């Protein structure tokens, strides 16, 4: 009661302090650090650059500032040597609780102010893909919840030590731990959440859930620690243990502390987001499981029911096997480690099964014993929160009413040790989704709606032929484009419509596919008639299978489309990114060697130049491409570190890497296209170069090393490296 009576007085006193307002003002300003200095989210989506980074930086700076304010405020009476008097008037325990509440209220006010100030700034920077939900969640979770953590940690440190200097050192060390040693440990980095990317076009609930989990775990932990420190507040002239012994007489106090610490420990241990996959990615023991003797695969089907509100999946899978061995056989499945398997039956009878604790490549091993009958129908149910493997790149298992991607064992248990039957692995998948979502199998299969349900959902069905399979679904727009003699189905997020329209995406796709198909040949993963180009949620790269290819949304952000290094405008950068389907995905390149300009970018930029030349004329192409390359290459050769590499070698590794990466980019994006242009002149012109590139694109691949090398390019041109020197 006394606390509640004192709280308004304490809050008013706190808000009358100039230091409080200075701390609040600095905290409100601190997101600017995320724009210029501290950028933990490495992706180039607009939300990563202009929302995640400022919010995380604001959270980290704000937590530190409020922590220091908390120490300053708690030490005020002692510093002024009036603590003996104030303690005589009000119990130090009551004072501590009141001060904590006042500080937390000031933190809430500051978070609100920060959001008000940064709302228009963020909206302006992010552009058409800005949404209020993302903004609110980012500032609440990435920034807002950091402030109470800072206050609790600092206040606890002071209450334990009762010395401002010592508690500042402890608090700063605790912050430094999060920013350095724990920065890649998603559950431990309490100050700076592990967020590498936020999607512009699709939802980010998975990432936000993960951050909220981490924050609440720490909130419980630090509230518990604070409560213990509260019990240690010195009273009646006693020391730390005497005061503790006195405070614990009211049993509910230590009980609350213990309950909070236990909650935190449980939350830490039982986190549902990340699996325990073997970190050694060279181990692939699941692929070494011997095939079940005499068992062949006939067909399978699955009914999948994603819960887009909870982010969970429920499903029923059914498998038909032929068992000619005359014995019971153990069938192995890969399942997502977040799923629980139940109700496993063979021909209507319960059969034993085990799920391994060992996990590998985001899969746990489910082993089911099937009976010694010739025809076996195995059914099972699975449900749970799909887990992912990479804690520093979370978000891949996003599941909401805007987007989902269910890959292999996350879609339904994947058979691992059964030989395919005559028809291979015939599969029928049915998935029930909200009406706003389109189901897109990542293959040549087409999904169709088989029922419209009363709850506003639709059930989609598609046939495939694989033991696994990937399904994308989301609030997509599909553009059908006739180009290169085939139908391109171009899927992109509805939120990206304005950006895509501005960049002339449809025209770019048509121009690229027509040009590249005519000059270099058809994509090997196109089925001949159709090709799906699917813009995915930010994933750090793309991949392709027969009939479908993935485009990472990060390549199509407004910022990337404005990158002059890749093209003269948004439409041309769009062309550049699409050309990567031929040079980069259709023909792969090995990891970039920092000493060589050879990479997928050289041929991609050159091809972009050729397409632009065809579209807008030679003068335009020369001005916006060749002249720009020349200028950049001239600058590159004059660069001090290029002329004096010994100084580059003197630099620490990080600085060296940053500079050589930047120089390497110039070489890849400017020097290499110029070299290819020179090669074009040396081999006899554009037609001859087109023929060479056509032959290279369609060459027979070595499965052990399928990459296109610089030497292969030089050999095809009958040139040497020296011939292409630009000096």
């Amino acid at each position, binding site marked *: 009661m006394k606390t509640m009576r004192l709280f308004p007085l304490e809050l008013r006193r706190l808000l009358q302090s100039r230091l409080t307002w200075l701390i609040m003002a600095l905290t409100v300003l601190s997101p600017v650090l995320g724009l210029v*200095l501290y950028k933990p989210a490495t992706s180039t989506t607009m939300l990563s650059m202009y929302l995640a980074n400022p919010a995380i930086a604001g959270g980290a700076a704000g937590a530190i500032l409020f922590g220091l304010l908390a120490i300053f405020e708690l030490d005020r009476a002692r510093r002024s040597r009036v603590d003996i008097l104030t303690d005589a008037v009000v119990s130090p325990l009551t004072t501590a609780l009141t001060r904590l509440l006042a500080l937390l209220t000031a933190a809430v006010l500051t978070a609100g102010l920060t959001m008000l100030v940064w709302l228009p700034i963020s909206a302006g920077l992010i552009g058409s893909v800005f949404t209020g939900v993302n903004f609110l969640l980012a500032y609440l979770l990435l920034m807002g919840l950091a402030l109470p953590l800072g206050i609790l940690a600092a206040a606890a440190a002071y209450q334990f030590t009762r010395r401002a200097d010592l508690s500042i050192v402890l608090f700063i060390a605790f912050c430094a731990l999060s920013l350095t040693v724990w920065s890649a440990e998603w559950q431990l980095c309490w100050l700076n959440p592990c967020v590498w990317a936020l999607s512009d076009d699709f939802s980010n609930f998975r990432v936000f859930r993960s951050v909220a989990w981490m924050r609440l775990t720490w909130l419980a932990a630090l509230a518990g620690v604070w409560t213990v420190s509260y019990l240690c507040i010195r009273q009646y002239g006693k020391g730390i243990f005497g005061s503790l012994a006195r405070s614990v007489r009211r049993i509910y106090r230590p009980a609350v502390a213990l309950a909070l610490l236990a909650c935190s420990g449980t939350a830490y241990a039982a986190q549902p987001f990340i699996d325990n996959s073997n970190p050694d990615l060279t181990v692939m023991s699941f692929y070494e499981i011997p095939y079940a003797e005499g068992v062949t695969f006939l067909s399978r089907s699955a009914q999948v029911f994603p819960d887009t509100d909870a982010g969970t999946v429920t499903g029923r899978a059914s498998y038909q096997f032929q068992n000619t061995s005359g014995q019971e056989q153990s069938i192995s499945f890969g399942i997502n480690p977040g799923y629980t398997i139940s109700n496993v039956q063979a021909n209507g009878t319960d059969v034993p099964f085990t799920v391994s604790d060992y996990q590998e490549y985001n899969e746990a091993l489910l082993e089911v014993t099937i009976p010694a009958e010739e025809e076996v129908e195995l059914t099972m149910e699975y449900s749970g929160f799909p887990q992912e493997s990479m804690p520093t790149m979370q978000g891949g298992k996003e599941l909401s009413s805007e987007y989902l991607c269910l890959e292999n064992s996350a879609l339904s248990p994947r058979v691992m040790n059964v030989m395919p039957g005559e028809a291979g692995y015939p599969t029928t998948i049915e998935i029930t989704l909200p009406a706003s979502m389109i189901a897109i199998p990542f293959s040549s299969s087409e999904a169709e709606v088989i029922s419209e349900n009363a709850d506003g959902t639709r059930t989609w069905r598609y046939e495939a032929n694989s033991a696994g399979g990937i399904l994308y679904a989301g609030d997509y727009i599909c553009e059908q484009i006739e180009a290169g003699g085939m139908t391109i189905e171009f899927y992109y997020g509805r939120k990206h419509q304005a950006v895509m329209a501005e960049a002339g995406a449809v025209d770019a796709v048509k121009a690229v596919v027509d040009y590249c198909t005519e000059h270099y040949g058809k994509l090997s993963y196109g089925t001949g008639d159709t090709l799906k180009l699917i813009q995915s949620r930010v994933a750090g790269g793309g991949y392709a299978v027969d009939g479908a290819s993935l485009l990472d949304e990060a390549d199509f952000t407004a910022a990337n489309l404005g990158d002059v290094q890749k093209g003269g405008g948004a439409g041309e950068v769009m062309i550049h990114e699409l050309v990567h389907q031929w040079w980069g995905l259709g023909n792969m390149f090995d990891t970039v060697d920092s000493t060589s300009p050879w990479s997928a970018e050289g041929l991609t930029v050159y091809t972009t130049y050729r397409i632009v030349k065809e579209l807008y004329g030679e003068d335009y192409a020369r001005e916006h491409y060749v002249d720009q390359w020349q200028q950049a290459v001239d*600058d590159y050769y*004059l*660069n*001090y*570190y290029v*002329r*004096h590499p010994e*100084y580059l070698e*003197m*630099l*620490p590794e990080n*600085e060296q890497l940053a*500079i050589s990466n930047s120089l390497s980019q110039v070489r890849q994006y400017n020097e290499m296209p110029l070299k290819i242009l020179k090669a074009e002149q040396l081999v006899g012109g554009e037609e001859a170069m087109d023929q060479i590139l056509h032959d290279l694109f369609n060459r027979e691949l070595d499965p052990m090393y399928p990459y296109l090398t610089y030497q292969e390019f030089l050999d095809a041109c009958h040139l040497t490296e020296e011939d292409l020197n630009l000096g």
Partner: protein
Amino acid sequence: MGKIFRYECRRLLWNKFFIGLAVVLLLYGAFVLHAVTILGVAHTAPFSPWSFGDYLSRMMPLLWIGMLFFLTFYTSPQARRTAILTDAAPMPPKQYVLVRCAAALTGGVLLSLLCMAEAAVFYGRMFRWYSWGSLLLPALVTLLPALVFALGSGWLLGRLRPWLVYVWMAVPFLLAALSLPEAFGLWNGSFFTAHPLTLGVLDPDFVLPAAVLAAQLLLLIAGILLLQIAFRAAVPPGGSITRRAVRR
């Protein structure tokens, strides 16, 4: 006089504000050195006078603000309220102004030296480069005129209206946004990035065109003249500084 100077220096430099300013300056300096200067400007070495000059130009807005903040110790309403007591000291007002300006300039110079020392440490640690003598000229022509002008103009503006000093702090940012002619290129740092490219040689020695030198001299002289006016405006104890200055 020496005693008062030491007292004023201690008042200006031995407080949380100076330490905070120095910390901010050092942090910003580290950021500039690691993000910009390390790359070198105009194809020159990171430790060339041109790159160093560019670094100082980038630090200049903070140094300018620091210098003007020192002046707020003397021009703030609180300081003016206590002037009636301090003016009662047995010392000619002009000398007192001189001492205070010298203390503020000392503060500015110390901050500048801090920036230069940080750069020197950076060059030594990163490149094992220690020929600091070649950096004195760019430091002198960049910093001295600007700091003296900040002192003179800031003092006068602060005497007229204390809040004008805060408005004056925005000047370097305004200059950075403007496209100035080459002669005034040192005022926003564009000189260091543009001029070496016009010399037609790689790694050119540091040279100052006559026009740039004249502009800097002009700035220095203007600063000294403004200080002169400030000294003249100083009044004996009991008089009103503002009123006298306006009457003149």
